[in-house]
């Protein structure tokens, strides 16, 4: 006993009870309400899915066959694809139970396998008594499975068998069927089923599978198939490269590129251009299901599973596709239905043909009659000739050739115009062979078939075929005729007209090509493109648009696109759209549109009306660009400009101000509006305006970012006429309005002051350092000075004592006096060197970073660098360890070294006037700084001599700077030494111990 049933058995009793109870209850209800049967339709997905929609239409149509007063229909769209029952079932089931507690459904129809699963799983809670009828469940899912009681339904399946049969019927010459399929698990199952089915045809045709290739490769392959093949398209959602694709789009692309007919399995593919097949039609499924449900309501107990009904997979053929691939109409099986039979020659030239044909048929009856009676009725020959002439005249006027073919005698009569269409002279005898020899070889078979069909069926003959003229020209002939029997089978005749339709064919081809080209172009364009008909409804969206919104084309068509427009922008958007449409004017607007990820993006929509060459309004075409990034950039630019602490002025090529930020207002005292459109010279002091104009012209000739007036002191003029020093950087900006010049204006009043202060500070430091030098000097000079002084005093003392003892010879006195004089002179020399020297207290030490000390000093020597036209380059370690030192003393050291370097660079060419200052850690316990110039370097024999007291190469130098510097460094426990650098110049290196307080 199968498990489902064994479990269901007790349930069945419960169900019986419920039915009995419900019957009683409903009987009572009947008394108070109209007795309608409740039908609950549970749709597994949302309605926007094409299969659901078609099924729904079919269901509703089917249910409407019951009298409307008998049925009350409830629909629930469960959208289980996006909200699976495993996750949301706990909320969904109570909801449904509550909803249908009072209105118990009499039958439950489920659409899709997910809805069936839910209904069966929760049947006891929801509607224990109601029978379930299911639709849209794949045969594979239910085949061979036991169904719970009171469940029935119609399974569906792709009909590979009949589709292939149709293909072979339409194209008997087919030698290969190329199958295209997808790679998802479900698609692989389909492909396997299809393989099994196709095996049955293996004796007749070769089967080849393209189910592992990327879509593009498939398309390339299909585009090159030989003409004796056909394509079977098994729906594809994921291609061989693992990429998700739209199965409808794939059908469309295949139909577009393929040289041979493409057969499909789904009804909706027919619109995409496939030729046809036994196409699963969900609306038919819906219709059948409705019928089944009505049977159930009527008390029938149908079998649990009804196998796929061929009616749900009707044989359908797409007329334009049939024509496109030049498949003979005559092969269409009777069971097949032809769709989209478009306007043919008849529809296009109905009036002309009607006029001609009415004349012709009148006359032709006469002609036929004349021909038949030819031998007997010579007397009417004349009138026949007359009428023939008249008829010919009419036909000539319509540019048509007329012909009559006596099938039995194989005699052909053709008007001169007709002969000229085939390039046959008036004298040549005409028969079947003569004519067929002119027909293009590829069209001969088809033409024969068509003619034969017309003769066999005694029916109309209509076809377009190609004629190869003796000079090699190809001509398209449109032929229409009909078969007439005059006097029994012996006189079967085909009468008809032919006309030259080459131009139309070419125009059709050109149109098709141009449409294909347009579509290609539109789909590859990096913008979103839409088109609308004159009724304002949109008819086309390119791939770019659909990729952006992530919605299928069907949803966007018509006014569907407006759903994606931001609510706040919708009114304005529609207003512009409608007004422009009515006025037939171009429009440009910006609005926000929802992107596939849910984010609203700003788009710039440009729409333009389309007109035919005769001026007929054809609708609109438009393109949209995502300008969110641009808008953000614009906004950021605006914010940045406004927030800039510097004045920013944008000037156009004519020298007019087009933008000025808030800071400019503050700097110059003008309001922003006052400046707009003014010449930028307004901001320049009068005395510079002339020069400024010339410079501006020069800048436009060679635009490049640079500081304005390099090397000059610039001044700007305020509204009140006062001036202030500025520094200005100018950069060209390329914009649609031409080259704009962006000027950044910095008020350097404060900097100038700071520079003046810095200079003063430097002088103070220099003075202090001079005092420091003296302090240092005093100690060392005292010894030098006291030495001769001591000797003098002692000599004098000795001389006096000799005198007292009267023991002083003249010789001795002279010696003493000479020594005293020499020492006196020596003291004088020493004193001269210390002239003007003061005393300076030694300052306290603290933690210092050499970079800071150097930065301070560089600020001090800025003007010296300028004065020496010397470039100072720094290569400072980002965070050298700190040292414990006296700031002023270290400044003095660096000041000395840097000023020396400037001095050494003084007579060099400009390129060598460089000073490089570097800091770096020297091991763990020391930090090293160096100052390097590119001058003549140190004396090669004794580089260390520069540190000697009173050694100087400078004319004005006192020669104690480096000596002092070294003693300062030594006092800090460091060393200062000099060397000649590689590549010329001197390098002074300072090494100071690192402070222990650097921490970690």
């Amino acid at each position, binding site marked *: 006993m199968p498990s489902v049933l064994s479990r269901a058995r007790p349930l069945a009793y419960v169900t019986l009870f419920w039915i009995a109870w419900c019957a009683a209850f409903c009987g009572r209800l009947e008394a108070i309400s109209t007795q309608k049967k409740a039908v609950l339709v549970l749709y597994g997905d949302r309605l926007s899915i094409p299969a659901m929609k078609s099924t729904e239409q079919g269901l509703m149509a089917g249910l409407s066959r019951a009298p409307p007063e008998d049925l009350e229909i409830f629909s629930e769209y469960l959208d289980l694809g996006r909200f699976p029952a495993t996750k949301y079932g706990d909320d969904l089931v109570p909801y449904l139970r509550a909803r249908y507690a009072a209105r118990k459904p009499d039958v439950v129809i489920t659409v899709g396998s997910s809805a069936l699963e839910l209904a069966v799983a929760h049947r006891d809670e929801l509607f224990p008594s109601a029978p379930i009828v299911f639709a849209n469940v794949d045969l594979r899912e239910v085949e061979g499975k036991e169904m719970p009681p009171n469940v029935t339904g119609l399974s569906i399946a792709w009909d590979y068998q009949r589709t292939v049969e149709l293909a072979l019927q339409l194209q008997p010459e087919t030698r290969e069927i190329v199958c295209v399929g997808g790679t998802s698990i479900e698609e692989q199952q389909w492909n396997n089923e299809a393989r099994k089915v196709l095996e049955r045809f293996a004796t007749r045709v070769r089967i080849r599978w393209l189910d592992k290739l990327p879509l593009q490769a498939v398309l390339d392959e299909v585009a090159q198939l030989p003409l004796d093949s056909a394509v079977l398209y098994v729906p594809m959602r994921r291609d061989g490269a693992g990429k998700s694709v739209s199965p409808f789009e794939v059908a469309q692309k295949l139909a577009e590129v393929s040289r041979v007919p493409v057969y499909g399995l789904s009804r909706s593919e027919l619109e995409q251009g496939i030729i046809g097949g036994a196409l699963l039609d969900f609306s038919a499924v819906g219709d059948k299901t409705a019928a089944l449900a009505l049977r159930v309501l009527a008390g029938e107990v149908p079998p649990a599973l009804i196998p796929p009904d061929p009616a749900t997979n009707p044989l359908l053929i797409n007329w334009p596709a049939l024509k496109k691939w030049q498949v003979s109409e005559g092969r269409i099986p009777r069971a097949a239905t032809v769709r989209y039979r478009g306007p043919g020659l008849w529809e296009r030239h109905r009036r002309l043909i009607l006029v001609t044909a009415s004349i012709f048929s009148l006359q032709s009856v006469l002609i036929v009659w004349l021909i038949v009676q030819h031998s007997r009725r010579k007397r009417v020959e004349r009138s026949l000739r007359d009428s023939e002439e008249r008829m010919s005249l009419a036909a000539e006027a319509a540019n048509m050739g007329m012909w009559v073919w006596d099938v039995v005698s194989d005699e052909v009569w053709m008007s001169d115009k007709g002969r000229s269409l085939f390039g046959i002279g008036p004298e040549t005898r005409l028969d079947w062979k003569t004519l067929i020899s002119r027909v293009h070889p590829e069209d001969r078979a088809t033409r024969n078939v068509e003619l034969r069909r017309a003769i066999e069926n005694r029916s109309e003959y209509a076809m377009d075929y190609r004629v190869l003229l003796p000079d090699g020209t190809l001509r398209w002939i449109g032929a229409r005729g009909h078969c007439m029997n005059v006097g029994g089978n012996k006189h079967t005749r085909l009468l008809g007209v032919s006309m030259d339709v080459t131009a139309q064919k070419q125009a059709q081809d050109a149109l098709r090509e141009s449409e294909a080209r347009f579509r290609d172009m539109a789909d590859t364009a990096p913008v979103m493109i839409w088109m609308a008909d004159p009724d304002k409804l949109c008819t086309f969206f390119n791939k770019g648009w659909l990729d952006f919104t992530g919605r299928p084309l069907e949803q966007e068509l018509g006014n569907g696109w407006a759903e994606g427009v931001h609510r706040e922008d919708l009114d304005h958007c529609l207003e512009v759209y409608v007004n422009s449409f009515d006025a037939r004017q171009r429009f440009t607007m910006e609005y926000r549109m929802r992107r596939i990820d849910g984010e609203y993006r700003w788009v710039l929509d440009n729409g333009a009306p389309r007109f035919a060459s005769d001026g007929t309004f054809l609708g609109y075409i438009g393109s949209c660009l995502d300008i969110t990034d641009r808008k953000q950039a614009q906004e950021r630019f605006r914010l940045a400009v406004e927030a800039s602490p510097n004045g920013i002025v944008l000037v156009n090529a004519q020298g007019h101000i087009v933008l000025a930020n808030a800071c400019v207002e503050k700097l110059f005292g003008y309001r922003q509006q006052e400046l707009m459109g003014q010449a930028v010279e307004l901001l320049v002091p009068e005395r510079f305006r002339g020069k400024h104009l010339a410079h501006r012209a020069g800048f436009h000739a060679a635009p490049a970012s640079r500081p304005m007036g390099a090397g000059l002191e610039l001044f700007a003029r305020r509204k009140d006429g006062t001036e202030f020093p500025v520094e200005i950087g100018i950069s060209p900006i390329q914009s649609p309005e031409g080259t704009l010049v962006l000027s950044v204006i910095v008020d350097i009043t404060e900097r100038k002051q700071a520079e003046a202060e810095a200079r003063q500070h430097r002088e103070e430091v220099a003075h202090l350092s001079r005092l420091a030098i003296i302090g240092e000097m005093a*100690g*060392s000079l*005292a*010894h*030098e*000075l*006291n*030495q*001769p*002084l*001591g*000797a*003098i*005093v*002692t*000599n*004098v*003392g*000795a*001389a*006096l*004592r*000799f005198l007292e*003892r009267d*023991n002083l010879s003249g010789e001795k006195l002279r010696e*003493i006096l000479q*020594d005293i004089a*020499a*020492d006196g002179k*020596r003291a004088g020399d020493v004193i001269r060197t210390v002239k003007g020297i003061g005393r300076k207290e030694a300052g306290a030490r603290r933690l210092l970073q050499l970079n800071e000390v150097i930065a301070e000093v560089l600020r001090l020597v800025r003007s010296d660098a300028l004065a020496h036209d010397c470039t100072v380059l720094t290569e400072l370690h980002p965070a050298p360890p700190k040292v414990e030192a006296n700031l002023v003393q270290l400044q003095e050291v660096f000041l000395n070294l840097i000023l020396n370097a400037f001095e050494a660079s003084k007579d060099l060419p400009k390129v060598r006037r460089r000073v490089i200052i570097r800091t770096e850690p020297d091991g763990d316990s020391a930090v090293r700084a160096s100052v390097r110039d590119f001058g003549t370097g140190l004396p090669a024999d004794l580089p260390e001599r520069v540190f000697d007291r009173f050694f100087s190469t400078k004319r004005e130098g006192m020669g104690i700077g480096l000596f002092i510097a070294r003693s300062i460094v030594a006092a800090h426990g460091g060393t200062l030494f000099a060397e000649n650098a590689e590549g010329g110049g001197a390098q002074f290196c300072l090494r100071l111990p690192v402070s222990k307080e650097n921490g970690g």
Partner: protein
Amino acid sequence: MTLAHRVVYVVDDDLSMRKAIGRLLESEQYAFEMFTGAQEFLARGPHAGPSCVILDLNMPELNGLELQETLAKMGRVERVIFITGGASVPTCVQAMKAGAVDYLSKPFRDEDLLGAVERALNRSSEQWIERLQHKEVRDRLATLTPREFDVLKGVIAGMLNKQIAAQFGTTEGTIKVHRGRVMEKMGAISVPELVVLAQRAGIAPAS
């Protein structure tokens, strides 16, 4: 007891200063010798009599303080007078602690230097005299027999002849003879004089 002649040494690297100091010493008739540096001076060797050194503090090689230290290590007794071009308190203190007689900043008054020289030589002379006296007492003590040395220790402890005799187990007469010889050998006329001599020689009285 006569002392050898007194000598003043001058060590200064500055020729001019050296010459001037030399003249000053000459004018006061001091015997002196002059050296250009510390090494030269050390090479000269010690003088066996009162002497002093005038040392320049700031000299190449060994400076004044270092030379003073070296002299002390070598056990030489020259008294030191420092002269300096640039006086500083710490070096002055160090010099005085190490026994310098004076510390003079150039230029100094001639009487200051000469006064310092005189003081230094006097101190040196006293030292020499003391050293000589000490040597004489020890020479005399060396002539005593062991028994006489023991008696000396008893006498300077203030013991009576009878007490000393009892200690050695002999007669008072014997002790009296020893005592007479001790007085004679040490050249002492009275007991107090003997006590002073013994003290100078560092002899402890018998207990």
